[in-house]
């Protein structure tokens, strides 16, 4: 990937992507690099005032072999980074709805009023992001790459649960650092087809007997295909559910969603509920606002609605209220 080349990112010790060490060496050019590698020390850019070019993972208990330079002490941030957001996702009879506002705030500044917080990963998976904008962008790209590589290597698409587990394992070394990523994977699992074995839960030990039984007893309720909504966070939390809202505006969104959500909603009702929830959250939360993005995921894939300005929604709401009030006054 271009980004990876610019960052000179080399997964020297397979800490991040241990799956790449499982493949055959003759099938991938990737592996050739690893064998030719030596530890060359910190490389810095001559042009850009000695910015370190190598992308380090934080020192973990497993890396006893080499000592990293002192990058474990966190660098002080130049300004408060963006954390404010309202994103939500829910499952109903017609699939999955994902909605998010489009404001990126940095402290009290609206850094960008038109950000894309919902990113498609593949035709049947969309991820909503909240937390630090830069971290989310990076991790979405990394996730997209890994999912695509998995698809190319194994000739089948990784399930949503497997994707969530993969993401969670990739984020685990960064627990305790200032990486702040809270993603909601909204997608639709297709039917397994010819692949009978359930690969996601037994990545490191593929075994038929007890391990498969053990995992199956804990989630005997979730079907293998259909809509899925999974929340993954850089703390390590990984939760599958029917309704999630993340971000500073999430309590306000929950208030609207919990009241109005039913399984039997029609597609239009679900979309207007999602829009209403984001609108109410942006009305109250200072760090959410501007526009709302809405995605609808079904068995046929994701479809995106045109971005809507919440200002219009506000005026419509005001109009409705004043009409109600005028109606009430007339009646009295």
């Amino acid at each position, binding site marked *: 990937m271009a980004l990876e080349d610019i960052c000179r990112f080399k997964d020297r010790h397979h800490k991040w992507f241990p799956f790449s060490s499982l493949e055959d060496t003759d099938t991938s050019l990737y592996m050739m690099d690893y064998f030719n590698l030596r530890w060359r020390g910190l490389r810095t850019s001559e042009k850009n005032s000695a910015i370190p070019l190598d992308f380090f993972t934080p020192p*973990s208990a497993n890396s006893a072999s080499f000592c990293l330079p002192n990058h474990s002490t966190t660098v002080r941030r130049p300004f408060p980074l963006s954390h404010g957001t309202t994103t939500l996702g829910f499952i109903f009879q017609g699939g999955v709805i994902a909605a998010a506002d489009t404001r990126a705030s940095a402290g009290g500044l609206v850094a960008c009023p038109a950000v894309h917080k919902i990113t498609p990963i593949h035709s049947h998976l969309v991820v909503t992001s909240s937390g630090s904008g830069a971290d989310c962008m990076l991790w979405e790209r990394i996730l997209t790459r890994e999912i695509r590589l998995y698809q190319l290597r194994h000739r089948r698409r990784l399930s949503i649960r497997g994707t969530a587990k993969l993401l969670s394992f990739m984020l685990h070394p960064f627990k305790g650092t200032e990486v702040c990523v809270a993603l909601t994977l909204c997608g639709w699992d297709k039917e397994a087809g010819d692949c009978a074995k359930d690969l996601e839960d037994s990545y490191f030990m593929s075994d038929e007997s007890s391990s498969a039984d053990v995992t199956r007893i804990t989630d005997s309720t979730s079907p293998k295909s259909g809509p899925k909504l999974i*929340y993954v*966070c850089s703390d390590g939390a990984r939760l599958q559910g029917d309704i*999630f809202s993340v971000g500073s505006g999430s309590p306000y969104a929950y208030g609207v969603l919990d009241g109005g959500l039913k399984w039997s909603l029609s597609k239009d009702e679900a979309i207007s509920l999602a829009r209403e929830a984001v609108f109410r959250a942006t009305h109250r939360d200072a760090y959410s606002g501007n526009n709302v993005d809405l995605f609808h995921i079904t068995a046929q894939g994701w479809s995106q609605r045109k971005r809507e300005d919440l200002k219009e929604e506000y005026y419509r709401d005001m109009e409705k209220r004043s009409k109600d009030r005028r109606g009430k006054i007339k009646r009295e």
Partner: protein
Amino acid sequence: MEYLIGIQGQDFVLVAADNVAASSIIQMKHDYDKMFKLSEKILLLCVGEAGDTVQFAEYIQKNVQLYKMRNGYELSPAAAANFTRKNLADYLRSRTPYHVNLLLAGYDDSDGPGLYYMDYLSSLAKAPFAAHGYGAFLTLSILDRYYRPDLTRDEAMDLLKKCIEEVSSASISRRFHLHYLHLFNLFHL
């Protein structure tokens, strides 16, 4: 606050956990399962910091399964508990300690039922009854008062219900959905 409780009887262990997964003030999930089945006769209940619980419990779970695959027979509950404690202790003074509180409930064919209490500082104690969380402060005295080593299953269920009532009524905000698991036959109530 998360809550775990375990009561050992003559030939069974009764364990229960709340079902709420929360993130600061929001309850994100109401049907979250905190029990991890290590083997046919061992259950691990795990609460604590968000990602640590699942990572650590699944690590222990897979290792117990690996032992069975390699050696052809299952680890005893005492061995599993000590293995868990050893892992906790090893990580405790590393840069990434696991902040998890555990209850391990098991039935050994020769030694009978066993309940093991472990906390995030990797202490281990085999106890007739145990609890984790703020609810423990409220219910340990109830358990002290009414527990007997020769409890029948119904009596143990009644004692458990007493504890749960207490936690539900005295707890500040959590809605509790207790999820019982009766170890000997391993069925969900």
